[in-house]
């Protein structure tokens, strides 16, 4: 069996709005195991508890009930919090609010500086991290002059410089334009595929998770579905039931199937979808299904 880098058992978490207010339980007993080196996407609509769950992964929140282990370390052991934070890095939604320094390279150096790494080693790590996110040429710039996507890549570099085994990204693309979003997703996949870093990507953009090894769907503080992307997206009805949409290609395939056309449901990427449709068009003999196929394909 593969080694788990993050494991939660019976994890419960509650918030209280004030002293006299009743507490609201946001996580109702979550059991998860995230394997080392895997790419896991967590999706769910607002208030499903996905961000709260993420904050348990590096001991920002501690469980009310249950346990969380990071690399075998219990997160409630406060003497080892630094070790946990060094293992699991975290990237947040707003790039502006996580950049500390006035100069790009100084910001990337922030984590290793805190860890007391030697200057020459920091320099090496900073250069490496900036190269990974392709921002080395901007190292002496001031962060406020960069675009949102570039700032977010700096934030990612700042986490990589810590040399973590796992990176948790909490909706890193939510505040970015489509171009910046693409940059970030590309970077995140590179981190996993080329550098073997475990990635936990929290998002509500369905098309960002199609390349993941595993997708976890959260709803009302519990795990609702858990499986590979194609398994998850075959549950179109259930996903819509919890206010989640499926990626456009899947939606198309689903509608085609409902209309009685025999297409596979696991065409997750637009390219794959186009192939399926092309093959379909060749074989189509009845006129009934043809216009629909043509009409939707022109969208891609």
């Amino acid at each position: 069996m593969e080694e788990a880098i993050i494991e939660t058992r019976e994890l419960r978490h509650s918030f209280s709005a004030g002293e006299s207010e009743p507490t609201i339980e946001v996580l109702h007993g979550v059991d998860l195991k995230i394997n080392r080196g895997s790419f896991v996407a967590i999706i769910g609509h607002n208030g499903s508890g996905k961000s709260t769950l993420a904050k348990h992964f590096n001991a920002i929140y501690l469980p009310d009930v249950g346990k969380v282990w990071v690399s075998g370390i219990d997160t409630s052991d406060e003497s080892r919090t630094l070790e946990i934070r060094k293992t699991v890095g975290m990237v947040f939604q707003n790039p502006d609010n996580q950049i500390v320094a006035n100069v790009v390279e100084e910001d990337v150096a922030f984590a290793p500086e805190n860890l007391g790494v030697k200057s020459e080693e920091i320099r090496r790590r900073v250069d490496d991290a900036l190269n990974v996110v392709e921002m080395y040429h901007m190292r002496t710039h001031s962060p406020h002059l960069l675009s949102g996507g570039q700032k977010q890549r700096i934030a990612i570099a700042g986490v990589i410089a810590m040399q973590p085994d796992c990176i948790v990204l909490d909706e890193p693309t939510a505040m970015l334009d489509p171009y910046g979003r693409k940059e970030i997703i590309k970077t995140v996949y590179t981190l996993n595929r080329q550098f073997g870093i475990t990635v936990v990507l929290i998002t509500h953009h369905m098309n960002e998770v199609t390349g993941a090894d595993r997708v976890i769907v959260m709803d009302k503080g519990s795990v609702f579905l858990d499986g590979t992307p194609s398994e998850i997206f075959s549950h179109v009805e259930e996903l819509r039931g919890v206010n989640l949409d499926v990626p456009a290609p899947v939606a198309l395939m689903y509608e085609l199937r409902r209309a009685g056309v025999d297409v596979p449901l696991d065409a997750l990427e637009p390219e794959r979808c186009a192939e399926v449709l092309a093959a379909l068009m060749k074989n189509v003999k009845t006129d009934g299904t043809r216009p629909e196929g043509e009409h939707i394909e022109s969208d891609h």
Partner: protein
Amino acid sequence: MLKDITLGQYFPGDTAIHRLDPRVKIVLTVEYIVLLFLAKWFFSYGLILLFLVCSAITAHIGAKTLMSGFKPLIIIIIVTAVLNILYTPGEPLVSFWKISITKEGISTAFFMVLRILLLVCGTFLLTYTTSPIRLTDGMESLLKPLKKIKVPVHELAMMMSIALRFIPTLIEETDKIISAQKARGADFTSGNIIRRAKALVPILVPLFVSAFRRADELATAMECRCYNNGENRTKLNVLVVKRADYAAIAVGVVLLAGTLIFRHYGL
């Protein structure tokens, strides 16, 4: 309009003065200020002025830029001059009514004004040639001994550099809020002073709320990156005293000795 605000203005460059260790520059500036108050007569001031001019030329900072700092000080300078002329006792030169202008008064006023002008030029030269980060780094390093008496030096330097980091972000945000309120019909330009001050409330409230939210998120992000109140902290760019810095220190010593000797002879 808000984009034009510059705090601790810095002109990037790559001259010998720019490259000097910020600690050396801060110490020299402090020495320069002290000497200005020790100087007595033209020779001492001449020496200090020579030092300033040489530094400015090496740093490629023009006289115009250097003097641009005078404008907001005009009133202070005039008031100082007038007070000194009128209230210094001594040999009367001109007398009318109850007021008399003395010889001593004129010379004191002249040197006082000269002192203020040189003071402003010198400190501006420091901020013109040193980036805010290097300045805070230098101050942190210089004030380190105060840690022994429990002065939170690192925390202060950290706060300073985060404040500098967020100035442009918050200015941008203020601009956005102003536009948003204008789009909703807010009027910031008409009415008397009280009305205008009241009109600022709908800008300040959202700005404060968002600043607090930012602070909270930044604190979490810093914790995630293992920030530990500066314990065992290392630096990417360590400040090193190089040969040029020793040369600058030597110049500083000569300046100190020169001014003290001139002072001794009342020059």
